[in-house]
């Protein structure tokens, strides 16, 4: 199809404002007479809160309010399950919000936050997902699962036994990936206020304004139509702005004080107030026949969900579905697990579970190629998906599968390398 505008190098309308510094990010918007909000976060990974003493904080001139779990009308939020407290009375990770201060200046708010005394009953934490999986370990979320295994997806196709018989070479290896932060440039910031209609207005940077609206409305007991979330310029997201961070807390403070509320994370606070990329341990065993064709894959993938579910179910599902790489393998046994621990909660990040598995399946391809005595390019050409290929989940790829064309474009770089050797 011939097109004029589609396919052309149209300049982005937002580029001028960004280049000239006119773009408004949420940190740039303020209202006269606004309060500043600061969150008090738990230093413990697993604890029950026995009491909170805010007397010393309230004595400070300029402190308008200190809010705790009991001040939240409906104290939960979450993208898949509402398993995360807005303000915690039971702590499952370092950084869980346990109180919120509203004050006339940011400095007063920070000083007041320091003066709040929280009495914790420390509970035994668990950090290793493979330990946490064991049935005798108490579940961190008994309301969701009786053990810490939040999710297990098995994928079964063909016969692994047959696959190993057909394998002339087998490579077995364990791969590990770490917790990763989205490291977006703009820390979380929110401006929240009640407008002349009595509606809650929340200006922020998010990946999904309508989701934020629903969670704010739920927690505060508002109708959707009484909450307006307006997205200002987003300074990077990468999945780290899918879960709620400060939105509900700021709105709650605005509701309780009937004042506009401004909140802005420091970088350190930002590290504690959004999800992380799942660290994964991936046990891989892959077999190929002498002709270079993959015939068997056994994979076990364990992902650390951390303290809350967030998108862990979907992320580990994606890991399992993509575990073969873009290759046809007839005999497959894949098991992926999402496991609760007292580590920082993990959720969406660019690649969403399919980023970790690339390390495993593509390392296996190179190791197999070496054993078979063929080039890395050759083994991929012999196995890559085409139109009509069937994936490990039994899905037929019916159109637009041009990996062979992509490889053809990159092939000259590898051929010239061979010539110079």
């Amino acid at each position: 199809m011939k097109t004029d505008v589609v396919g052309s190098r149209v300049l982005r309308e937002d580029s001028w404002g960004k280049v000239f510094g006119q773009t408004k990010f949420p940190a740039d918007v303020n209202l006269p007479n606004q309060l500043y909000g600061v969150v008090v976060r738990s230093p413990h990974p697993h604890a029950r809160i026995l009491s909170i003493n805010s007397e010393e904080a309230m004595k400070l001139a300029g402190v308008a309010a200190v809010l705790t779990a009991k001040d939240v009308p409906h104290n939960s939020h979450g993208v898949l399950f509402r398993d995360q407290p807005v303000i915690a009375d039971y702590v499952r990770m370092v950084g869980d919000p346990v109180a919120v201060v509203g004050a006339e200046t940011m400095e007063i708010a920070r000083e007041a936050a320091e003066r709040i005394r929280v009495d914790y009953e420390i509970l035994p934490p668990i950090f290793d997902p493979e330990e946490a999986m064991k049935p005798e370990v108490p579940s961190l979320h008994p309301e969701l699962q009786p053990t810490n295994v939040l999710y297990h997806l098995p994928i079964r196709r063909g016969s692994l036994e047959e696959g190993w018989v057909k394998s002339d070479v087998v490579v077995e290896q364990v791969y590990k990936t770490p917790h990763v932060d989205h490291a977006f440039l703009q820390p979380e910031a929110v401006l929240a206020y009640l407008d002349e209609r009595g509606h809650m207005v929340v200006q922020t940077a998010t990946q999904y304004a309508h989701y934020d609206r629903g969670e704010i409305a739920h927690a505060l007991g508002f109708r959707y139509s009484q909450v307006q979330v307006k997205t200002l310029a987003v300074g990077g997201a990468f999945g780290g702005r899918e879960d709620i961070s400060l939105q509900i807390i700021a709105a709650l403070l605005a509701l309780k004080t009937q004042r506009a509320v401004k909140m802005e994370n420091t970088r350190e606070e930002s590290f504690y107030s959004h999800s992380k990329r799942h660290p994964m341990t991936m046990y891989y065993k892959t077999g190929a026949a002498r002709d270079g064709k993959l015939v068997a894959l056994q994979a076990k993938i364990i992902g650390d969900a951390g303290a809350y579910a967030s998108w862990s179910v979907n992320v580990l599902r994606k890991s399992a579905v993509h575990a073969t790489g873009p290759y046809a393998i007839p005999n497959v046994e894949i098991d992926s697990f999402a496991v609760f621990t007292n580590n920082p909660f993990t959720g969406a990040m660019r690649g969403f579970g399919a980023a970790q598995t690339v390390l495993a399946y593509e390392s296996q391809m190179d190791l197999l190629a070496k054993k078979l005595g063929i080039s890395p390019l050759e083994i991929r050409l012999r196995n890559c998906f085409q139109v009509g290929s069937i994936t490990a989940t039994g899905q037929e790829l019916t159109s637009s599968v041009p990996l062979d064309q992509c490889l053809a474009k990159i092939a000259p770089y590898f051929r010239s390398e061979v010539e110079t050797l």
Partner: protein
Amino acid sequence: MKKRGIGLGCAWYGTGYGNGFPDVSSAFVEIHDDGSATVLTGAVDVGQGSSSIFAQIAAEELGLRAEDICVNTADTDVTPDSGTTAATRQTYNTGNAVLKAVRQAKSRLLTFAAREFSCPTPEGIELKAGYIGVKGDPSRRMILGYMVFKARLNGERFISAESSTARSTPVDLTSGQGAPYWPYSFGCQAAEVEVDTETGKVKVLKVIAVHDVGKALNPTQVEGQIAGGVTQGIGYALLEELELQKGMIKNPAFSSYLIPTALDVPKIEAYFVEEAEESGPYGAKGLGEPAMLPTVAAVINAIDDAVGVRITALPATPEKILQALAEKKEELG
């Protein structure tokens, strides 16, 4: 000694929420009396450029320029819900919703214009370069805005609302069988690295990235996604790791949590393959996430090619490489 190597990485990515989760995008369109138009959608532009893509789609359909289209997004009092800017879904999914909405408004405009021009069928009307007229008859055309204004005098407005839903089915919980995502996006990258065997430091010299995009709706933005993805992939391969001690983050600062800086970004050659995905707007599919996926494998495989050690735990820090080199030396005796 500095040793060079080249590595290859391939990846695939099922786009959309997947697994039968309702994956719906919506858009409102209004064509104005002056020949400009407004698109309203909940889709947040997080910096990747989705708003420009929607302007291009609307402009293409209406025979206008992208700057004639105002795209308003992500204000819940004003715009319809379009799902998360995630899952590599906005160009594909909201792009489809915008396309459906603009075509709905356009079809009523064409019907009105056919009557005005006494043309027997709306198929005989075209929108081009800001004009509306009868195909192949330059004497029967007028400025688009004037036609829209004429319609107002007749009590007709060109306003539309549409939604688009991606296709996917849930996988079986005991066998994993099903069709969880559609469409899938593919890509491969090659990385050339230099490994310093004295310090263990890896320098990425060049990355060649080839990605399947269905149709590049805006090639500059395709290149931008690839450059950003490769850079993030290099960080994942070589630098980034949250250090935890009893659940406490030991490096919650950019001085200790290292991400690539401009000096770490190599020469990037970005290419794309266009094989239309029939269910996408103009054949397009998403590239947001796939752009970063192959990089980590290309870099890790290149390290092996350069110095013969296999790093199996990210990130490939100088310490890990020196240790692997020492172990290899020991093995060789």
